[in-house]
């Protein structure tokens, strides 16, 4: 997700990788024999252990379910999918190593992974150099597909929407569904994620004819928000957008409700943690909303079907990561079918032209920056439970 750590390590890695990639080029062309066989090898490079193992293992379950389904159905153009799974241990350097192994030794057609933005960015160079499409199921940072120079990573794609997009969704939801005119924004000044969401929310909300009456910020690790909330309260907003992480958001929501701020509050996927409930309490969280990729309560037919299949296989309700992993396989299948071959460059071109593909997490198209254009789900907290509210299209 939003783990942009190990940047310095990354810089060092890319230097080394440039050298390695030079050698690997020939290997790959020489080993094209495997591509004519009756199976399609797809690499899976996920966080199966380490700090964010829960993201990676959830996605792996979703991926496996989709692959089993496709293979039982006769595969893609008669070819069965074979997964090559590597655990990157939630570490950017390990993710780079895994990508090198998958492209140069295993000669995979495409790589699925990683779950976090940091570990995906760490593989981008290798994917580009080895001309192997790389699809991150849940890397939401814009930097995954567009590098710091503003160039698009030609072979890198993603299934999830990008962070700032959630700001757009929240703005549309506030303006159209809640019908509010005057809003306040309270963002974390220490986080690019939060600032990005706040900026896109403001832009789109003002475009929709609304007015931002107060814009305040805090710094991660603060615990006293009462004075700033008092200031926000006196501006009389009808809605407050708080794009932060659960540790501070929990306190903000609690303190705001204590001070008699009872307007709707809204955030993004940074809120998504059981700790939020512990900090804020179920009562304070009533009348708050978050954006997310997916909800298992979604009444949509495709979602229901996926839900049932997943339940049957794993005995539990799927979460957003399960759904994104599952969708990534179908995104790739669609591209391989349209490309008509397992040639990596053709698959890449087909991926870049994906338009209006129906997936469990929404209708998917891709723009010129490889940022998906897809719907987002709005969840509402009701007495301590997250329930499906509505789906918002971009």
């Amino acid at each position: 997700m939003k783990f942009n750590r190990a940047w310095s390590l990354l810089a060092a890695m890319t230097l080394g990788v440039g050298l390695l990639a030079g050698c690997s080029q020939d290997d790959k062309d020489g080993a094209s024999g495997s591509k004519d066989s009756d199976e399609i090898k797809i690499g899976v490079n996920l966080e199966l252990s380490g700090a964010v193992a829960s993201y990676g293992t959830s996605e792996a379950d979703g991926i496996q379910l989709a692959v089993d389904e496709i293979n039982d159905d006769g595969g893609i153009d008669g070819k069965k999918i074979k997964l090559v799974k590597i655990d990157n241990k939630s570490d950017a350097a390990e993710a780079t190593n895994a990508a090198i192994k998958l492209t140069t030794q295993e000669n995979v057609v495409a790589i699925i992974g990683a779950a976090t933005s940091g570990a995906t960015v760490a593989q981008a160079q290798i994917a580009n150099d080895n001309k192997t499409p790389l699809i991150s199921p849940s890397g939401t940072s814009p930097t995954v597909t567009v590098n710091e120079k503003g160039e698009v990573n030609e072979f890198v794609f993603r299934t999830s929407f990008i962070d700032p997009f959630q700001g757009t969704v929240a703005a549309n939801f506030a303006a159209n569904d809640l019908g509010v005119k005057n809003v306040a924004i309270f963002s974390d000044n220490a986080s690019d994620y939060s600032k990005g969401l706040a900026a896109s929310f403001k832009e789109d909300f003002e475009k929709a004819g609304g007015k931002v009456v107060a814009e305040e910020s805090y710094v991660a690790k603060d615990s006293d928000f009462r004075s700033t909330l008092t200031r926000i309260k006196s501006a009389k907003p009808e809605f407050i957008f708080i794009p932060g992480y659960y540790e501070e958001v929990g306190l903000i929501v609690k303190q705001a409700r204590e001070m008699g701020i009872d307007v709707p509050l809204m955030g993004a996927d940074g809120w998504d943690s059981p700790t939020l409930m512990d900090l804020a309490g179920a009562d304070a969280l009533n009348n708050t909303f978050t954006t997310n990729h997916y909800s298992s309560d979604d009444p949509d037919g495709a979602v229901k079907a996926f839900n049932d299949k997943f339940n049957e296989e794993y005995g539990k309700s799927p979460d957003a990561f399960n759904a994104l992993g599952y969708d990534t396989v179908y995104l790739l299948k669609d591209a391989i079918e349209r490309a008509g071959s397992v040639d990596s460059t053709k698959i890449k071109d087909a991926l870049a032209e994906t338009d209006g593909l129906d997936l469990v997490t929404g209708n998917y198209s891709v723009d010129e920056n490889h940022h998906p254009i897809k719907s987002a789900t709005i969840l509402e907290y009701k007495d301590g439970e997250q329930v499906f509210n509505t789906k918002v299209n971009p």
Partner: protein
Amino acid sequence: MEWIQQLVNGISLGSIYALIALGYTMVYGIIKLINFAHGEIFMIGAFIGYISISGWGLGFFPALLLSMAVCALLGVLIERIAYKRLRNATRIAALITAIGVSLLIQNGVIYFRGAQPAAYPQVFENKSFNFLGAQISTQAILILSVSVVLMLVLQFIVHKTKIGKAMRAVSYDAEAAKLMGINVDNTISATFAIGSALAGAAGVIFGIYYTKIDPLMGVIPGLKAFVAAVLGGIGIIPGAVAGGLVLGVVETVVSALGFSLWRDAAAFIILILILIFKPSGIFGKNTREKV
């Protein structure tokens, strides 16, 4: 009535700073040591309160007393183990030891329970009522009253009891106090015990008011309380209370004016200004250095 609300916010925050600052100032007053481990005692106090409320189901007052007792013991232990043998060493050696103790406690807690935060359970039904247009929560009232009671008790101990008299004597002149038959070691221990108990109480109050506690929570409030102690005049007990309240209100006013990102900076700018213009603090008397 935004300003009344902000004043209430500021005084609530300030009274927590004041409780922590008291411990700093008492220890400094008696052995001229800035006890940087004080913020960690505050953190331990918050965790003891958390465990006794959510784990053992104690009420607020038993949890507060238990936490104060454990912290008092911890304070004495730290003094006996780490500071006592440095009593005749240079002040910088003792200061560095204090920073070491602080890091040891922080990382010790992280080692044993992890760095993730914990959420304080709700002990009171939190109602707020309207006072001249400001929303005042019952919690804020409780925090204020507990702080005020503790400060009055402290004032009583220091001025009306035998141990208080001994503390004042040792602080004035340790050598002379010894000659008069005062047990200096015990007096210093008592000072650490009282100061740490106040920090423990501040920890529990902080947990209830701000909900989130974690092993590194003591660092910033500890530094702020240090600023408060210097602001009021380090070593002077009423100064610590005044310094804490002034600091809390100043921070709130800075946020209220829309400079919330400058709030922490404001506290440290105050520290710099006070050290330049009136190093002895608001309540301090200018004493000439003895050469």
